[in-house]
């Protein structure tokens, strides 16, 4: 149960972040030069791998057993609740929906004012935009995957999920050559928020000595409660806006 949910959570979380990174690379490549876009993105990937190589062993060296479960739980709660908060606001119409296509357009217009250097000269504006965009999305992937993978037995499903996401997103990018506008990113992000919050609550309580009734099955009822409360919040916060429109 934990293996499948961890892999699913890592696939969805990494996939959504990588979609946003892909939109930035595509925007730089399409509006500037592909070489500079890929160089900037490649440098960011190296930086993210360095962070992952430093973070994983450091996390495991500092804590093990129950303290590690609490640390992982708190990290997952921070990520999960933030994703859920934004998801609730977006689904309630209080915030713009999450869209890689919008990010693509924003990045293109951000670069419009910078003149492209002559052929043979490096395009630092394009490289920096690609580097910064991929670095920020990539570090979020590293933090979430490290948190999901840091507990005993969690590394394999977290890495499998991330690899699946990477293959899917790179494949989509090569095939489509522009961001996908039909992916329901807001709903998927809300789902990831539910999964991360569920794991966070489960591990935090387990690390503090709680004996969950049903063992791993608790993940199902904890997830159901979190999803139900998020749905109720969406309905409650959407109602006043609907009245205003009517």
């Amino acid at each position, binding site marked *: 149960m934990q293996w499948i949910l961890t892999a699913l959570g890592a696939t969805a979380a990494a996939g959504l972040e990588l979609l946003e990174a892909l939109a930035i690379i595509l925007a730089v490549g399409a509006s500037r030069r592909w070489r500079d876009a890929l160089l900037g993105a490649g440098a960011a990937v190296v930086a993210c791998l360095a962070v992952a190589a430093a973070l994983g062993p450091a996390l495991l060296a500092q804590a093990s057993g129950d303290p590690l479960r*609490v640390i992982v739980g*708190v990290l997952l*709660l*921070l990520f999960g*609740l*933030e994703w*859920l*908060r*934004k998801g*609730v*606001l977006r689904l*309630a119409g*209080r*915030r713009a929906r999450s869209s890689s296509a919008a990010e693509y357009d924003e990045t293109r217009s951000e670069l419009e004012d910078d003149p492209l250097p002559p052929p043979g000269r490096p395009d630092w504006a394009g490289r920096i935009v690609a580097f*910064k965009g991929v*670095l*920020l999305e990539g*570090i*979020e992937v590293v*933090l979430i995957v490290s948190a999901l993978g840091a507990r005993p037995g969690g590394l394999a499903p977290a890495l499998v999920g991330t690899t699946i996401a990477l293959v899917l997103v790179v494949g989509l990018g090569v095939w489509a050559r522009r961001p996908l506008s039909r992916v329901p990113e807001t709903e998927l992000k809300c789902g990831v928020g539910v999964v991360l*919050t569920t794991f*966070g*609550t*489960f591990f*935090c*309580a*387990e690390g*503090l*000595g*709680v*004996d*969950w009734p049903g063992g791993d099955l*608790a993940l199902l009822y*904890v997830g159901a*409660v*979190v999803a139900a*409360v*998020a749905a109720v*919040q969406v309905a*409650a*916060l959407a109602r*006043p806006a609907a009245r205003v429109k009517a």
Partner: protein
Amino acid sequence: MSVLRELRKLVLGETWVLPLGVAALLAASLILRAVAPDLWEDAGGFLLLGGVVGLLAAVSAGSASRRRNR
């Protein structure tokens, strides 16, 4: 500096209420575990879950009202 600000937002989120709320939940859990260990072992998970969903409800309602007031 903007990259550092973005990194802080990545880890702690856009609002301070959420990390402070999670810290308060953790502190309350530790106190309850020390005061009533048997109760905590049996019902602590549900109490923590209640706190988590309460925090979610509070923080999303708070964010919505701040956006409405802008």
